[in-house]
């Protein structure tokens, strides 16, 4: 199992947001993490990235926890945040060099990946630019490139389509498919359910810090007796059931 979260409870300081959740992501799997605002999606992501301390339970990536071996753990996970956060003092190419160096990617591979992914996301012209002159979409693409350059086994993605143009969305989804085929795992938080329905292998629906439902689209349809229902319909049914 690539990512294994066992009985995780956590949150911010004394505020408990997550209550005993279990999540698993296998190699070659794209798992959609969905839920209302404040359901605990971002908190889950922050715990996986080690940005928040775990109160109880454990998080393992390829069987390694952050506490046991921080370098091995961190090397295996890359992150695309919802809000782009770039260093104002580095050009895009310098960001990519830094990420490659910090994730112990060899120089030749790093250069190949820079050319490959920057070309696909139409960012070659922007490689020598500073982020201060980037548009919102360019910043988002830069964050995507920073994550892809690492070649990590697990990709954590938070609302990746915000600010992207249709061509970039299509290319990103194609890249996700290729990563899956290479045996990488992706955990993606999103509100764009139509796209998620077409591309995710499984879904985890969080509600008020609990897992309200999980499974493939078919499994969820069966559970909520919505044989012709879309993910949107299933989502509404799951929230209504959880609030009952």
């Amino acid at each position, binding site marked *: 199992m690539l990512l294994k979260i066992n009985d995780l409870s956590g949150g911010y300081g004394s505020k408990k947001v997550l209550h005993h959740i279990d999540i698993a992501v296998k190699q070659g799997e794209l798992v959609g993490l969905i839920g209302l605002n404040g359901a605990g999606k971002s908190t889950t992501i922050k715990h996986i*990235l080690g*940005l928040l301390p775990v109160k109880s339970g454990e998080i393992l990536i390829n069987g390694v926890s952050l506490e046991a071996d*921080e*370098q*091995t*753990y*961190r*090397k295996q996970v*890359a*992150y695309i*945040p919802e809000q782009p*956060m*770039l*260093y*104002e*003092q*580095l050009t895009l190419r*310098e*960001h990519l*060099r*830094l*990420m*490659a*160096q*910090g*994730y*112990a990617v*060899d*120089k030749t591979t*790093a250069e190949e990946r820079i050319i490959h992914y920057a070309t696909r996301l139409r960012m070659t012209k922007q490689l020598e630019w*500073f982020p*201060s002159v980037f548009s919102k979409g360019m910043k988002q693409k830069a964050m995507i490139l*920073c994550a892809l350059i690492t070649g990590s086994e697990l990709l954590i993605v938070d609302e990746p389509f915000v600010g992207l143009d249709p061509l970039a969305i299509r290319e990103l989804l194609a890249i996700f498919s290729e990563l899956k085929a290479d045996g990488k795992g992706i955990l993606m938080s999103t509100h764009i359910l139509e796209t998620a329905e077409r591309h995710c292998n499984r879904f985890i629906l969080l509600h008020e810090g609990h897992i309200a439902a999980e499974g493939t689209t078919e499994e969820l349809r069966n559970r909520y007796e919505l044989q012709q229902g879309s993910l949107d319909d299933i989502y509404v049914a799951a929230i209504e059931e959880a609030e009952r």
Partner: protein
Amino acid sequence: MTSSALWKTRYQAAMAEMTKYTRYMANGGLLFTVYFVVLYGLVVYGRFLDQIDPDFPGHLIMGGLFILLACYRSTRTFLVEADQVFLLPSLPRLDGYMKRVRVYNAVYGIFRVILPFLAVSVLYVRTEQTTAGELILLFVSLGMIGAAANLSKLEGIGHRIVLLYATGAGVLVMLDMGSFSIVVTSLLLLTLHLKKQEQLPLMEWITLEQESRDRFYRIANWFVDVPRLSTTYKRRRLLSHLVEKIGFDQKRTFDYLYMKQFIRSTDGIGLIVRLTLIGAVFMWLAKDNGWLVTLAIPAFSGLTSFQLAPFTRAIDSHLLTRLLPFGDAVSSKRKVIRVTSFLQVMVLALAGFILSSEVTVFVGAIVALGISEYYARKK
């Protein structure tokens, strides 16, 4: 919202913030050094004036001051980013606000010329045949230049127009026709009046205010840590090219990141250059006293290391930094402080030795290196 209410709230808020930072700056260690250097500079200037030759070309200095003061222009409009949305409905009714902003900037422009005028006028009266009336006329002309410089920026008028008129007035002073300079500066103000904006140019004025605030924060940042400073970075191609030579090795990840931060930020290389220059000027002023020159080396190097120590703070808390699996941030930070302090101490010691010929400057250099090591190790 009415013009007067808007002006009152904005002006009071801006003044409260300026007062707060000015108070912090007054308590800062660097300001003490600046006071000291300025006071020492005044003593040296006083000695120079006592021995000045009556043939010294004071009129050229006064004329040059006209051009020099026109080169700098700074404006406050007290508008904030959110105004581009919330002030839109009131825009046609903000004439009163525009008037107050203009008056503030004109008065500030006049105040800005007072100290330079006083400094040059004491030289001018010793070297030129002049009367109190002529001096007052010169001050009024210069004040008009200061006001016009600021107002031109506010009205979106090219800087070259102010520079042209100021050069004209300055040349008249240089030709010993200083009293006529007021005619030129009055024409300048008339030109600005004819070209003034009819309606408040919201976006432009918001940008001007942001620039002005950033400039103030950058100065305040020399003395205290300013959290709201929107930092500007310069590419610095040559230095950046040198940093690219750092080995592509996971252990050197933070060497690369910190060196880029150091060479491109004002609180990195900019800080070292500023304090080294101030230190060199201080040593030049005190060159007759070997001990003062010697003490200046650890004093200025210590001040630099003290202020340099937190230069990585902004990037240490950055998301990407926190995610990096490899690299030794602490060791890289120490390396940057050690290398840069060593270079600064060498420059100061060499300058001190050339100026004073005292071997004791090298003792000062050793003490300085000890102080920088203390700050490099400090968490």
